[in-house]
């Protein structure tokens, strides 16, 4: 697949129409700036607005104030630009197993974007899937297996294949490894990094683990109650956090992942 040029993301003062409580929007004036070609992490507690942010970037949640731009597209794009926009942005969802057709063949699920957004024929899609699967470390022989027969790690790889099928300039990953054990998690993150290097696409990862961001991301934005409270290079933000919420997250995370050995039992 020919890759598109990496695209950046600019979000200015985004306020969602949906609210977490009466009068309190889920995103309450959120700013986000993602450099083209970078790997950018989004962290924050439950309810901070991480998933809603991704839905705003995909044009699935409308904002009533502010602006969202991905590359040259204003989001949500006007109808004539929608297919081109859909090809520009790939999504790796959190629930990989649930996002694949459980009874349809893998090649069909993986080429959904190609068939719908790029108008590729059935035979071409079948051939494209055979070429895509090895790129994400899957045996091409899996192409004819049903979605429901894949393990969690295999399903997450298939979702990545689907996300890169149209050669997107931006890949969004919503907690792509939160359901995986550490061994699978590291292998899927290494794969994401490799695919990003190969395609040159920008990668935006919503992560539940701060260590994942520190190891795999260039930059990070910390969300709290629908606002970006801290942003910067991942190593700086996570080693010397400034905002009190970032500090709380870093300390809670370090507390349970002790350096040099576990603490004494209470």
């Amino acid at each position, binding site marked *: 697949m020919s890759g598109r040029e990496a695209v950046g993301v600019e979000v200015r003062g985004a306020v969602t129409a949906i609210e977490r409580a009466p009068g309190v929007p889920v995103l309450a004036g959120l700013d986000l700036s993602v450099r083209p070609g970078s790997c950018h992490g989004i962290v924050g507690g439950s309810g901070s607005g991480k998933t809603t942010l991704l839905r705003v970037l995909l044009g699935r949640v409308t904002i009533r104030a502010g602006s969202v731009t991905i590359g040259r597209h204003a989001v949500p794009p006007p109808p004539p630009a929608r297919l081109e926009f859909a090809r520009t942005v790939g999504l790796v969802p959190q629930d990989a197993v649930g996002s694949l057709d459980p009874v349809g063949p893998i090649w069909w699920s993986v080429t959904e974007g190609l068939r719908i957004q790029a108008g590729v024929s059935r035979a071409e899609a079948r051939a494209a899937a055979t070429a895509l699967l090895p790129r994400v470390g899957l045996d091409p022989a899996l192409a004819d297996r049903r979605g429901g027969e894949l393990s969690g790690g295999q399903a997450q790889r298939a979702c990545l294949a689907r996300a890169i099928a149209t050669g997107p300039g931006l890949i969004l990953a919503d907690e792509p490894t939160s359901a995986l054990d550490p061994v699978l998690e590291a292998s899927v993150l290494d794969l994401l990094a490799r695919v990003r290097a190969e395609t040159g696409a920008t990668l935006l990862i919503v992560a539940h*683990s701060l260590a994942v961001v520190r190891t795999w991301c260039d930059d990070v934005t910390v969300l709290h109650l629908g606002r970006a409270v801290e942003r910067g290079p991942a190593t700086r933000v996570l080693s010397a956090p400034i905002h009190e919420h970032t500090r709380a997250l870093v300390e809670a995370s370090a507390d349970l992942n002790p350096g040099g050995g576990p603490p004494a039992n209470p």
Partner: protein
Amino acid sequence: MSGSSPTPPGRTAPTSLSIEGLRVVWPGRDEGADVAALGGVSLTVPAGGAVAVAGESGSGKSTLVACVLGLLDRRRARVEGRVEVFGTDVLRASDRELAALRGRRVGYVGQLFHAAFDPLFTVGSQLAEAHRAHAPAAATDGAVAEALRLAGLDAGPDLLRLRPHEMSGGMLQRAQVAAAILHRPDLLVLDEPTAALDALRRREFATLVAELRARTGAAVLLATHDLGLAARLADRVVVLHRGRVAAAGTAAEVLGSPPDGQARALVEAWRRTAGGGGEAPGGAA
């Protein structure tokens, strides 16, 4: 028929849970395609002790938990070995014997706190129902309030009237803990309890379980791939790989210097993805 021999009252059971040579095989569709979920696992949780069972997806953690809770579908799986919970052989116990253990002497907290409650009923009414299953109704209100207090939820009348979707994930996980400790169980079984919690809630949960252990003296069996949680809560860690014990020892031994092979691979992947054993971030000692 009963093949079990419960511990007589008045005698303290030296172990809460004893598993010996547990082997569970799921028959495959074709001959020779049988899958051994557990291939001969032995472990012991002493009274008041805490043991973590760690391992990759598919290593057999959930099958082991299902055996301990007497929930394994024995019509489908072939089971060998022995699993004793407070002296009752749960693999051969009757439904009545299992009912006397589950919810009363054994409390369970799972990963899917949303699925743990019926969405149509208030959390208060569901906790009350769980209490009445094992105890007279007259004591219910007090027991529910006490369990909620121990679980760190302020048991105001408003809270009891909330339905599950009106509570946050952290609150629901605490409500699940309250349900598990209603009858002051001697053994708490925790199956991936923090997988759906963020870093702050995860630490809260670890602190809560540590406090409960200190207050009630309950033993803990923790199945998880969160090695940080295992290190915090467990005296001993058993690493499973493909249904077999790949490493066993104190948390410091297993996580500090894991034996070569799958246990080491798991610990090293954990260090990369969770930061365990890495440089301590600023501010945290």
